[in-house]
């Protein structure tokens, strides 16, 4: 983010350039539409990307002489974006957000109005600018002891050091917007093209979860602990849900979301429901530095290198990768791949992903596009001329699958999307069942039953109608993950820290709903990585059998 021609200071630089940088760096978490706070750009760029004001990579060495530079030497790798530290194995990486560095020995965190984090070491003298510079340059801590071997020794001039220290001092550890002394505000986002049945199912689960959460808190309510005049420790805050329903054209969604956020700041977005276009929501979350945790989106938008958008799975895009692998390994020669999808549905994006993968491999791929609202009988036309040596890939919804009953099967090499078709509930006609293999990006029914039953029982007891099982189970899982993570973050209600703790909490999670495992890390934004290829076992019913092991394409 260093601009050519010099360094920006917290109070200098044209407002336009500053706004652009803020949008890119995603630091604007607070205040939404409020005026952006001054940004210590040099320090931030050094902290996050390991770049000096000259745009040269920062150089560092370790005790034993090993050198590292640039992104490899960036502070963020260990101390994380929040500046609140991390732990790996037996190694604890302490917080370096200013309040933790400059806290005086003998004073408790809460006396200083600083939230507890489990990586904090309170047994050091308060740093000064000088002793902190020595720690960064020479690896000597405030108490004169050598810092851990992991900590590099950095080379930088005094002015750059001052910028870095200024950045560390400016890292906020006070509660993010959307967190008051009594309420934690969360939002969930629903796009206008979302399935109305799934919408109802998701909201039923979320509303009930929030009611339960608040009831449980009320039942176990201990007296609020005021441990100092400046801070309350472990206060039970009420959860409040704000449903952000979008309307109109996708081009207007970001502005709508900004407006929602400005009128009611939230700590994070939990779950949510999309149709075929999640891009504006994704852009909003990244630009506003707002955690958007586990939305129900069949074609998620984003990259592993993002920070704020976290998904359970790549959905139909994962299916496309699974099928590309299948087609690459097909035993029988395939003349061409024919894909069928409806215009504007997520199948279109999946088909594009599959097409790119197979075209790169030199295979002919033909797309047959059904108009968005055309009658299902148009399938006849779309499947005309599909021959026995063609592979047919169906990116279709249940009603189109039903309509296949009147379409003759002309090839035995058929694959379909489980996510779009309804997994084992897919109403595939008998003749087609025999020849169709299904991408199945979740755990097998028999194996997930115990994990999903927990959610289903919860729905049953609370009389929540089961209308969209996976969406509802995933929503319940998303709420549970946030709740569990909040236990770990105690009082450090910092949005970046929430994401970092979700990453850590996920590996420990036993009840993972539809997914056999969920893992995240810095640089991982899709928690479940693979799927099965299955086939219906019988001409009728919902029994499916895997055609191999779990595959991670």
């Amino acid at each position, binding site marked *: 983010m260093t601009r050519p021609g010099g360094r920006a200071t917290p109070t200098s630089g044209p407002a336009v350039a500053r706004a652009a940088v803020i949008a890119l760096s995603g630091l604007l978490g607070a205040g939404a539409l409020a005026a952006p706070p001054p940004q210590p750009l040099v320090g931030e760029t050094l902290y996050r990307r390991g770049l000096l004001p000259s745009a040269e990579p920062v150089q560092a060495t370790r005790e034993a002489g*090993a050198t*590292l530079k640039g992104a490899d030497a960036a502070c963020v*790798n260990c101390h994380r974006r929040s500046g609140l530290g991390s732990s790996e194995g037996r*190694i604890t990486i302490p917080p370096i957000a200013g309040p933790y560095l400059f806290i005086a020995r003998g004073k408790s965190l809460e006396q200083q109005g600083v939230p507890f984090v489990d990586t904090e070491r309170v047994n050091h003298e308060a740093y000064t600018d000088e002793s902190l510079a020595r720690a960064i340059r020479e690896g000597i801590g405030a108490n004169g002891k050598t810092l851990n071997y992991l900590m590099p020794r950095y080379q930088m001039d005094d002015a750059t050091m001052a910028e870095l220290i200024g950045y560390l001092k400016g890292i906020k550890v006070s509660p993010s917007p959307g967190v008051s002394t009594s309420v934690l505000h969360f939002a969930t986002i629903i796009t206008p093209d979302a399935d109305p049945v799934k919408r109802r199912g998701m909201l039923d689960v979320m509303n009930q979860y929030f009611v339960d959460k608040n009831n449980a808190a009320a039942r176990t309510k201990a007296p609020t602990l005021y441990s100092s005049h400046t801070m309350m420790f472990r206060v039970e805050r009420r959860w409040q849900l704000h449903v952000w329903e979008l309307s109109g054209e996708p081009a207007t969604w970001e502005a709508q979301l900004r407006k929602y956020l400005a009128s009611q700041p939230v700590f994070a977005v939990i779950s949510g429901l999309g149709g075929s276009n999640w891009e504006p929501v994704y852009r909003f979350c990244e630009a506003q530095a707002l955690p958007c945790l586990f939305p129900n989106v069949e074609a998620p938008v984003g990259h592993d290198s993002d920070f704020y958008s976290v998904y359970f799975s790549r959905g139909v895009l994962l299916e496309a990768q699974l099928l590309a692998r299948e087609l690459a390994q097909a035993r029988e020669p395939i003349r061409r791949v024919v894909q069928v999808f409806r215009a504007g549905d997520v199948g279109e994006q999946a088909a594009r992903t599959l097409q790119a993968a197979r075209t790169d491999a030199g295979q002919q791929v033909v797309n047959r596009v059904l108009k968005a609202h055309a009658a299902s009988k148009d399938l006849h036309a779309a499947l005309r001329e599909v021959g026995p040596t063609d592979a047919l890939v169906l990116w279709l919804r249940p009603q189109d699958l039903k309509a296949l009953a009147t379409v003759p099967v002309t090839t035995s090499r058929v694959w379909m999307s489980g996510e779009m078709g309804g997994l084992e509930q897919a109403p595939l006609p008998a003749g087609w069942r025999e020849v169709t293999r299904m991408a199945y990006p979740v755990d097998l029914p028999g194996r997930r039953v115990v994990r999903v039953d927990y959610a289903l029982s919860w729905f049953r007891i609370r009389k929540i109608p089961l209308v969209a099982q996976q969406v509802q189970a995933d929503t319940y899982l998303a709420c549970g993950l946030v709740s569990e993570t909040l236990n770990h973050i105690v009082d450090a209600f910092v949005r970046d820290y929430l994401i970092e703790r979700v990453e850590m909490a996920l590996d*420990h999670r036993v009840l993972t709903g539809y997914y056999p495992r969920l893992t995240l890390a810095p*640089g991982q934004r899709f928690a479940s990585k*693979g799927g099965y290829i299955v086939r219906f076992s019988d001409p009728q019913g919902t029994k499916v059998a895997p055609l191999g092991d779990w595959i991670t394409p």
Partner: protein
Amino acid sequence: MRPRIPGWLGAALTCATGVLLAVATAASVSRATASYETPAVMLVRADGKSVSLPQELDDGRPVLLNFIFTTCSSICPLTSRTLEEFQHKLGPEAARIHLMSISIDPEQDTPARLSEYARKFHAGPEWQYYTGTLAASLAAQRAFDVYRGEKMSHTPVTLLRSTPGKPWLRIEGFVTPDELVDDYQKLLASP
């Protein structure tokens, strides 16, 4: 001679299948001799080839083994940089020793991602990376006593062996490249 470490630490370092003698040279690095039973699992090498773990380990060369994951941002870059320096410092001798890095996050670490990671650390041809099924990775982690429940709990462990059938030198902690060269040369010189 290196001092013996207290029994409790030795017990803590003892693997399920081996007998070991643990010694410490510095506060943060400890060394032990241990024997492990290699599980007969198949792994996928970064070049995409499916290979047997015992065969890869027992190809006759001295072997250095460690466990990493590519999105690990603190410990692994340091241990990988150490191996890079180790290869560099060995010079022509580097061609004799087989370096093996097995992913503990195999679902994320596809062969393509491992190849990219290997390039980043200038891995020479004798340094190979492995992924595979989660079950295979877990079996390898358990066999070499590096499994710590989940990936974020892993600790830096480097294992060295001079020839198949010989015991392993187990190094826990952040060993430096120079120390590693020293360990390797001593291991080769020992009867």
